[in-house]
């Protein structure tokens, strides 16, 4: 009787892992599209010094406000600067800000979230602080943070990062709280498992999937917020050709030179879209349950 009891019914159909590459492509085509667009945009931005046909900053008044033609594929701005070159360099700002904000807010949110989820005493205080931060619209908080010191890309990153943290904290805390309730974790605590091991063995692996998804969405949102801040004139210093800055300058001439708003706008939309598609794909892939929720 024992020999049949041990028969695993599913042994024969263990099948390929859901992480197999071809399967991912087949099941999540949007992720492929998003990933490819993002990678292309990233590579092109990184190679901007080699790809850009002109200097993105040098003024050239003779060729000001030229519509797209064979010399200037995407036209020029009010100072005669090549739009294509400015957009290529602008992509670097968006990527840098987006990636940094995603990384910093995720790491800080993870730290605070683990502490809040694990230590009852800290939880009450930290979560009140997070509730308060969430009550301030992110862009307003970022704008306020931008005013207290001289503008630079670093300050932009900090200003966008802070409002993103509370949501990561909530996510991580929720996972930690639910993990603490699991019998196997309670057992681990009961036999004296130390906190760092608990973190490594139980908390991090369970937080990773939703955290990666969240980080992707933060990435997309940060790219947008950077452009919004620059557009409003309170973001990246105006001498740096970020997409928001390019649009902010171009808006003055939108009636006679629509390309000044259209092209950077499309570049921005394309990048944000590709990241969001990637995020949706990752969400479906890493946590099928999440895909139904968010």
């Amino acid at each position: 009787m024992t020999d049949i009891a041990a028969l695993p019914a599913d042994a024969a159909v263990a099948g390929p892992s859901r992480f197999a590459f071809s399967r991912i492509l087949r099941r999540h085509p949007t992720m492929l599209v998003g990933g490819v667009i993002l990678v292309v945009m990233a590579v092109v931005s990184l190679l901007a010094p080699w790809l850009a046909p002109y200097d993105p900053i040098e003024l050239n008044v003779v060729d000001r406000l030229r519509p797209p033609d064979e010399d200037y594929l995407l036209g020029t701005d009010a100072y005669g600067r090549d739009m294509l070159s400015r957009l290529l360099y602008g992509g670097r700002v968006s990527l840098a800000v987006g990636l940094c904000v995603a990384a910093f807010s995720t790491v800080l949110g993870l730290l605070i979230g683990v502490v809040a989820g694990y230590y009852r005493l800290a939880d009450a205080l930290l979560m009140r602080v997070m509730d308060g931060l969430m009550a301030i619209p992110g862009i307003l908080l970022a704008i306020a943070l931008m005013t207290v010191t001289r503008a630079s890309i670093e300050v932009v990153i900090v200003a966008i990062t802070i409002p993103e943290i509370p949501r990561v904290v909530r996510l991580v805390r929720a996972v930690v709280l639910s993990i603490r309730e699991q019998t196997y974790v309670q057992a681990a605590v009961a036999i004296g498992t130390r906190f760092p091991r608990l973190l490594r063995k139980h908390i991090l692996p369970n937080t990773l999937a939703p955290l990666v998804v969240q980080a992707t969405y933060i990435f997309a949102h940060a790219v947008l917020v950077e452009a919004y801040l620059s557009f409003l004139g309170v973001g990246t210093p105006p001498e740096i050709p970020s997409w928001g800055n390019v649009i902010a300058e171009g808006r003055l001439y939108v009636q006679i030179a629509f390309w000044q708003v259209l092209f950077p706008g499309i570049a921005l939309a394309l990048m944000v879209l590709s990241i969001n598609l990637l995020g949706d794909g990752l969400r479906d892939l890493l946590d099928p349950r999440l895909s139904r929720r968010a």
Partner: protein
Amino acid sequence: MWVYVIRRILAVIPVMAVVAVVVFLILHLSPEDPAAIIAGDNAKSEDIDAIRQRLGLDRPLLIQFLEWVGRLLTGDLGSSIFLNRPVLQLIGERVEPTAALAVTTTIFSVVLAIPLGVVAAWKAGTWIDQLIMGLAVLAFSFPVFLIGYGLVYGLALEWELLPVQGFVSLSEDPGRFLAHLVLPTIALGLVYTALLARMTRATMLEILNEDYIRTARAKGLANGRVLIVHALKNAAVPIVTTVGVGIALLIGGVVVTESVFAIPGVGRLTIDAVLQRDYPVIQGVILAVAGVYVLINLAIDLTYTVLDPRIRY
């Protein structure tokens, strides 16, 4: 129920306290001398000293904070450094366009997003669902100003259908008031619609898998009845919650939209204040906005008692 209501109301206090501390600290934790930043790059040292004194920046931090909070509790949000007028008054003058835009956008988005989300969930996996969700992720990713300038360029400039920008007060001319709000509402509303539609779909999908939906279908009810009475009614709480939380996002979008359409609202007030480093105005706006946000979400929490009978007792 009253326990729930009172608990919710009391929960507002710590949140606003944290907001006040954050708003206060932003200026004071700056690595640079706040008085110098406010005074601007070309200020003389006497000007900086004057500002420091006027804002009380030379006194101990705790005293400053307590005095500031004391004034806040009497409803005094401080005065603008440049305009030399009470912040509350400045906000009051600018609040109509901002509130109007926020309200029209919320209505527009809710009316559009909920049916779309419900249909997408009902037709999950079909081309209808994919189309709606595809449009949603697109709208979700498009910057407000791209949609805004697109609308301005297409509808307002080319066809002269609608006013390009600006704002007309409701008391002045209701027709033109609405006409001026159409384009900003669409530009801002599409993003918010996308967010809500995604959320509605996700919630509905989860609810459509519930046992009581199967029961409703086993009763032989029509699809509409199953979707609206049985599913949507249960989805109301999460959807309304998203509307409330989304207001934070909406207000951020309002600032940008006001800029695109040259609407003289609170967003413009804020940006002007930032460019002039008029810190009391910035602090006042953030406090007021956060206060409104917290109150709206309190109101939403209280509607749960109507939407979900389980909370009532």
